[in-house]
């Protein structure tokens, strides 16, 4: 999809894809909400929706094309399973908190999931949201953090270090867990724990996961695949 459209953002899509597919297939109920705070992983979101039958092959073929619904970031309209057009970082946790609080006030038991990047913990609004969601004890809210430690122009520790991120978050009144982000059983185990507080699960992930030449390489935040790289990636994934 990315190769055919000649676009990048593959690295951060691959770091979050495992968790996203797991949530969409095993946890997300019909009335639950999923908010992708790291909107640049829209490709992984589209694939997750497609794998649940919520997007068609035709939709995917139009990815990044003129007149598409599937732009580089989640769209405003046209796909009911996408509630918000994210892309500017630092919005998703607040949107998720508002959604969860609204559902609680309405007395419905639906759950809200939000997937954020580690880089967007450099946004002040993310911390505003953390204060709010922990203060209101939004137990119907799960935040997943794709902690791949690479951002747009460097390593998160080199750009504006928050390391260790879990240490910064420990002071909040939330259920905080740190799990290997590509270990599905570990993520499942983390998602089993449901107390009376919001959950925040730091997924220790690998940018470009699954493709040897992309893994832990900052440049795959942006770069599109060349033909040779595409063929190699398919071979590594044992795809035709």
């Amino acid at each position, binding site marked *: 999809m990315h190769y055919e459209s000649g676009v990048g953002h593959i690295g951060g899509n691959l770091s979050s894809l495992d968790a996203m597919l797991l949530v969409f297939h095993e946890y997300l109920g019909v009335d639950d909400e999923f908010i992708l705070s790291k909107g640049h992983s829209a490709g992984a979101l589209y694939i997750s929706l497609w794998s649940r039958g919520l997007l068609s092959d035709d939709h995917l073929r139009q990815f990044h094309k003129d007149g598409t619904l599937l732009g580089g970031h989640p769209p*405003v309209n046209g796909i009911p399973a996408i*509630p*918000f*057009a*994210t*892309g*500017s970082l*630092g*919005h998703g946790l*607040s*949107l*998720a*908190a*508002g*959604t969860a*609080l*609204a*559902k609680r*006030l*309405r007395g419905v038991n639906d759950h809200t999931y939000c997937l954020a990047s580690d880089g967007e913990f450099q946004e*002040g*609004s993310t911390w*505003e*949201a953390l*204060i*709010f969601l922990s*203060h209101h004890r939004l137990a119907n809210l799960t935040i997943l953090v794709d902690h791949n430690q690479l951002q747009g122009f460097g390593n998160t520790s080199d750009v504006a270090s928050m390391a260790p991120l879990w240490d910064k978050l420990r002071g909040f009144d939330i259920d905080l867990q740190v799990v290997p982000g590509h270990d599905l059983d570990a993520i499942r185990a983390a998602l089993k724990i449901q107390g009376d507080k919001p959950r925040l699960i730091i997924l220790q992930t690998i940018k470009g996961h699954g493709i040897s030449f992309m893994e832990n390489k900052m440049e795959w935040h942006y770069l599109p695949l060349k033909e040779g790289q595409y063929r190699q990636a398919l071979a590594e994934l044992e795809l035709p």
Partner: protein
Amino acid sequence: MRKQLCDALIDRSQSPDMIFLTGDLGFMALEDLRDSLGERFINAGVAEQNMVSVAAAMAKQNLEVWVYSIAPFCYARPFEQIRNDICFHDLPVKLIGNGGGYGYGVMGPTHHAIEDYGILLALPNMSVYVPVFDQDLAVVIPRVGNERSPAYLRLGRGEEQKGFEVPAYSPWRQLTSGKGKTVIAVGPIAGGLIAAFNKMPEDDCPNLWALAELPLSKNPLPLELLGQIASGSGLMVVEEHVARGSFASELAIFLLNNGIAIGSFEHFNAQSHTYDFYGSQNYLRKQSNLDVETICTAARGI
């Protein structure tokens, strides 16, 4: 207008869908609303970006969501949240900015809102309400509450002379009549002109119109006003807002697009934050030639 705001909101508060978010403001003003709404009155703390995104998400869940703060904290700090989360999605969040224009006076430019509606009306789907009189709130709040798109309510204070009989609410109202120029004033500043205009000889007394809802494209000029403008007697626009993004600029484009000739055009507007000295709302209006005396002098053509 805060008391009238509070009363009008309390009138709606029995709806289980109504939510009120404040950015830690409302002391000695909104306590009764807080008591009426209970858990649906949410002090979101000093965190306006989060508050606005939370509001957008709650509106997406079909709740009637109001957001309240001092005006610039309501539209300037969380601008991207208003743009992306509210306006792009056409969500009917109701933003209330207290202290429109120079309302916070000597508190200084950090608290002034002289570019609010110009900025907000640059966003898709936005409507703006600028009530003129305190009594307007009883009508404006239900209008804003029933909006199906984003809305911004710029709160000021009623400025009409005591005893003035406030006409029934309408987005456009003619407040004085005469043979002088046509004057359009946006929001409460119109109220302060009534008594001064009425003291003028009939030949000088302007036709004063108060405008309470923007943009012009949603609130077309009344035919009577259009006729007065087209008569060529001269047109003045008075607004506590900077020129860029002003109502006057939208009006001028409308008049030019439609080939409507006017005798003269004068715009009285807020000056941007370039002054060295602080002062009251009246002091700052004087610095911007928005005081009653200067406007009356201009209206008489002196």
